């Protein structure tokens, strides 16, 4: 089973919840593969104490770059007309591609009657699997700086995690998504069994969560939510609980010990198991277990 942890707004505590959920599942439900799908800013491995051993690493070729062979080009302009991103313009020397606009999808290659365009594969990231000291393998994707097509990298990560879980007989996968609702987040949610939204008591987070719910609805994914840092604004937390309209697993308070746990690179459930935040996390996870985790 795959659970994806997401939030429409950044900094609400996705990695906090995903890392501790992985710890909880490892201890009580037979194990989890953790997946860091925030490929532009991957942090999950660090939140799980860092790598003790790297199992494997591979290059990810996520993008294609069209290259025009001007000796074959008849200057017919079909590539210019067919590009939906206005990335090709005709010059005296023939068609020229603006690679900052190009999405590398290859429509230009297909429409070219002279077969003058070919696509060259481009390395845009890396995928690596690390062991952590908690017995939780972490699949991390890292997008190269300034590159696009992160959604495709997320699909690959989820595929690697699925295979790893099948090979090693691990029952659960926990996916830590990127902030927002864009392409990589759509890929993170697509195919998951449950979307767990982490919301904080701010108008910005409520708005982001509602936008995320629309995405989940399109993809027909089950949804549950936790309210993180509820004590920063209990009134607004109550408003969120009333307005969000999804199953709430519980509220987690913000305490200084949450930041201290990060500073020592230890998941909270290990760093301060008796803290109020840890106990609240446990309550949420038990409700998750009873309702969804099978």
């Amino acid at each position: 089973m795959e659970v994806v942890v997401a939030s429409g707004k950044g900094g609400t505590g996705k990695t906090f919840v995903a890392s501790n959920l992985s710890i909880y599942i490892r201890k009580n439900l037979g194990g989890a593969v953790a997946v860091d799908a925030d490929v532009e800013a991957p942090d999950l491995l660090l939140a799980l104490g860092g790598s003790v051993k790297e199992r494997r690493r591979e290059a990810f070729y996520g993008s294609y770059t069209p290259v025009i062979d001007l000796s074959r080009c008849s200057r017919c302009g079909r590539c210019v007309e067919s590009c939906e991103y206005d990335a090709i313009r005709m010059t005296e020397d023939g068609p020229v591609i603006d690679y900052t606009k190009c999405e590398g999808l290859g429509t230009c290659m297909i429409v070219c009657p002279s077969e003058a365009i070919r696509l060259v594969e481009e390395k845009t990231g890396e995928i690596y699997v690390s062991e952590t000291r908690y017995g939780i393998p972490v699949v991390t994707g890292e997008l190269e700086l300034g590159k696009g097509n992160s959604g495709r990298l997320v699909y690959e990560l989820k595929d690697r995690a699925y295979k790893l879980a099948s090979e090693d007989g691990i029952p659960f996968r926990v996916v830590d998504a990127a902030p927002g609702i864009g392409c990589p987040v759509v890929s993170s949610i697509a195919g998951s069994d449950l979307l767990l939204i982490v919301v904080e008591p701010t108008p910005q987070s409520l708005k982001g969560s509602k936008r995320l719910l629309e995405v989940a609805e399109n993809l027909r994914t089950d949804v549950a939510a936790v309210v993180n840092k509820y004590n920063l604004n209990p009134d607004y937390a109550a408003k969120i609980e009333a307005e969000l309209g999804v199953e709430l697993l519980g509220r987690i308070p913000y305490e200084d010990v949450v930041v201290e746990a990060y500073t020592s690179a230890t998941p909270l459930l290990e760093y301060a198991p008796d803290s109020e935040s840890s106990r609240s996390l446990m309550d949420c996870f038990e409700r998750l277990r009873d309702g969804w985790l099978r």
Partner: protein
Amino acid sequence: MTVYTVTGGKGGTGKTVVAVNLAAAMSSMTGKRVLLVDVDVDNPCTYTLLQVEPTVVMEVKSFKPVIDDEACTRCGRCVEYCPAHALVLIPGSGLTFVETLCEGCAMCMYVCPEKAITRGGRTSGWVKEAETDSVHLILGELKPGDRKYHDVMEKTLEHARDVWDKYKIVIIDTPPGTGKGIRMALEASDIVVAVTEPTKLGILDLKRLNRLIRMVGRREVVVVNKYGLPGGAHGELEAYLRESRVRWFKIQYDRSLMEAYMSGRTVVSYDPEAPSSRDIRALAEELLKEAP
């Protein structure tokens, strides 16, 4: 005219808070209105802190296929070619289009041997605008469920470029990350304001972002937001900042900043004498001096 891009690798470090407060502070210091461009199209939040309701000035359109079921022979060529796997052939029923996955490249239309696919349009997002006494806001918003967020960002930036010569100060507020969208926003800027927080994750993401900023080759100022956060990794962060020899400023973590954010206001107007407000004004002054 100077373009400041406010960014930060990690989510939730306070990019929007810094961008909106800077806009307010810089406007009152210069006596001129500031152009604020919000390209965090996934969840644009600047307007909630400015307490305005932006109106749509432009729709961002993308291609979507229109399938003629009569003409379609279920040959599967479009399914095979679609780079986004947005077309599915379901045995017994027919060709199904999944709009959420579509990248709008129109490949399907060109590869169909029966010409059974024609051009349809969809809205991927909107460019909106709003005005306050101190700020002209241009904002991009992605339609939830659509994946063409880079397109919406690009169109928002293009729209802003058409008018930004009229302003002395332009501030771009970005989404988190270090990918293509951030690169676009960095390339548009003269000076980058990288917002981080004193946490281990904040440091890790700042390091990645700094590599991108150097790649693009822009002047950089780091802002340590939530400075003084109890339990934070201040020593590690300051050691990194010293080592990387970057100019940096702090914004004190205080109650007023939090309260202002919760109530949807700028802290510089909510509590002008709060330590965080003073820090923001000091930052604004320095940034104005940095202008080329």
